[in-house]
């Protein structure tokens, strides 16, 4: 089973850089054990990733109203994930449901998909990430080997339903 981690976000926009920062730190590890790609913007180009792995993990900043630094694990597609302003409008910023529908229409293979969301505080340009977001990033990087194992295990509990871990909750993927 192959895992591809796709870090999403804007490196210039405060907490929206969380996904890319996690990716950067994973790249620095020698025991990552998977492919890593930066994809600042999701779109129909995601189709090209579908052939590269059996499991895709998207890592991105999210906004759900939860406290900053909360970590969310959501199997995709999920009705809980609404792309900003996209819905039926966008061809340029095709959202994930549209991309999946296109893949099915074309008979393309679709891997298992998971979103790891880092709850943001602010996306103000050129502002450092919030302290809680930094802690969440560090926790993800520290616990990544366990996350990788769970992602590659189709029977793992993380595939059954969405889970959230508030900032400071050490139980995130703890063995």
């Amino acid at each position, binding site marked *: 089973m192959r895992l591809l981690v796709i870090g999403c976000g*804007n490196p*210039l926009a405060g907490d929206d850089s969380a996904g890319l920062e996690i990716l950067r730190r994973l790249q620095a590890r020698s025991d990552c054990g998977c492919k890593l790609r*930066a*994809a*600042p*913007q999701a*779109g*129909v*180009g995601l*189709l*090209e990733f579908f052939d590269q792995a059996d499991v895709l993990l998207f890592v991105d900043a999210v906004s759900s109203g939860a406290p900053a630094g909360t970590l969310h694990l959501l199997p995709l597609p999920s009705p809980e994930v609404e792309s900003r*302003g996209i*819905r*039926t*409008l*966008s*061809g*340029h*910023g*095709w959202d994930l449901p*549209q991309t999946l*529908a*296109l893949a099915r*229409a*074309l*008979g393309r293979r679709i891997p298992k998909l998971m979103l790891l969301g880092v709850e943001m505080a602010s996306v103000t*340009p050129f502002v450092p990430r919030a302290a809680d977001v930094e802690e969440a990033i560090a926790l993800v990087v520290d616990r990544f080997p366990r996350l990788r194992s769970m992602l590659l295990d189709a029977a793992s509990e993380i595939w059954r339903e969405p889970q959230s871990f508030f900032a400071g909750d050490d139980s995130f993927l703890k063995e």
Partner: protein
Amino acid sequence: MTDMTSNSANPGKTVKVDYLTRVEGEGGLHIWVDNGEVRELNLRIFEPPRFFEGILRGRHFQEVPDITARICGICPVAYQMSSVHALEAALGVKPGAEIRLLRRLLYCAEWMESHALHIYLLHAPDFLGYESAVSLAADFPREVERGLRLKKIGNALLEFLGGRATHPVSVCVGGFYKAPRKKDLVKFREDFEWGLEASKETLRLVAGFNFPEFTPAYEFVSVSHPNEYPMNEYRIVSSAGLDLEPAEFERVFLEEHVARSTALHSVRADTGRSYLVGPLARLNLNFEKLLPQAKEAARASGVSWPCRNPFQGIVARAIELIQVFEEALSILDSYQEPARSRVDLKVRAGEGCAATEAPRGVLYHRYRINDQGLVEFAKIVPPTAQNLRRMEDDLRLLVPGVWRRSEAEITHVCENLIRSYDPCISCSTHFLKLRLDRH
């Protein structure tokens, strides 16, 4: 979604369409037609203003390409090219021929992915009777796969030259942070050759579409170069006889704030009239500068040039696909690795502007920097913003001819018209809920 209501106070008809699909961004359109006459037409943009011009103030000029690239995920190169050319004008530098060629190749990559996306995923469904590319793909998988592969080649080339497929990181004022090796560039030959033939197939497909008869009297505006199909240089020309230095842009073209929209609308400063930028304008004004295979294919397409039908913008894009694949092959053959990937820069206070051809048309930038290289002023005029007034004018002309049709047909033809502009609403910031009041 389409609603139809009637208002006893106003005996005309109101047709409301909430969303225009297959454009980028959020906006709304309200048209009130009374006995075939358009009484009110409002193209409203809901996207919050992005304040990029304000964000750039106080930033170092070398940050500008990275920041402006994030105005758009589909046309980041356009923003980078207009910004570096304007800043190089402010600094009084001019990169050499190899860097110039690399920049054209980078722009080719962006036109490839943008035009392929628009043709196959956004606009072709309109002409083939499908509500979306997804439903189109179920019946025409070979064609959609062709479009996706064309886009993929553009993205791969962007990533190779720019360091990343979206928001390239290798572009800098003065050149590139890193120039590619020739031995790596030539690996694209097979893709370019495939893309050239696939583009010709694309033109054969779209040139055969059934286009509404609609030929307004446009003033076409584009960048123009003495010898080449325009991309990064040089002057700005129009079908009404304009021939300008970029420094004259703001004197000739006026941006007006419209209360109903967060985007500015552009008109000719002297006449107050709208104008058109984009592939149709580019092709009409620069047809003779197409490369040989693109020109031959354009002549054989069955469309007469110059063309004034905006619905045939999809044909212009297909011709430009041939053009950029043909040019990419030419550059691949002639490319020589530069001794240095960028020129030395001496920081000084200055002001500079430039206009380059984004996939959607003329993109104008102006910057003023201080003696520490910090941006004091920035002005960015995107092509979609320039076309917004022209879109409204076209709708005013189009709707009286179709108002007696069903609301679904009116909606479809209005949406089709707007999609023919390939608007990038997030760039203009300022897409589309369509509400048509028909009385």
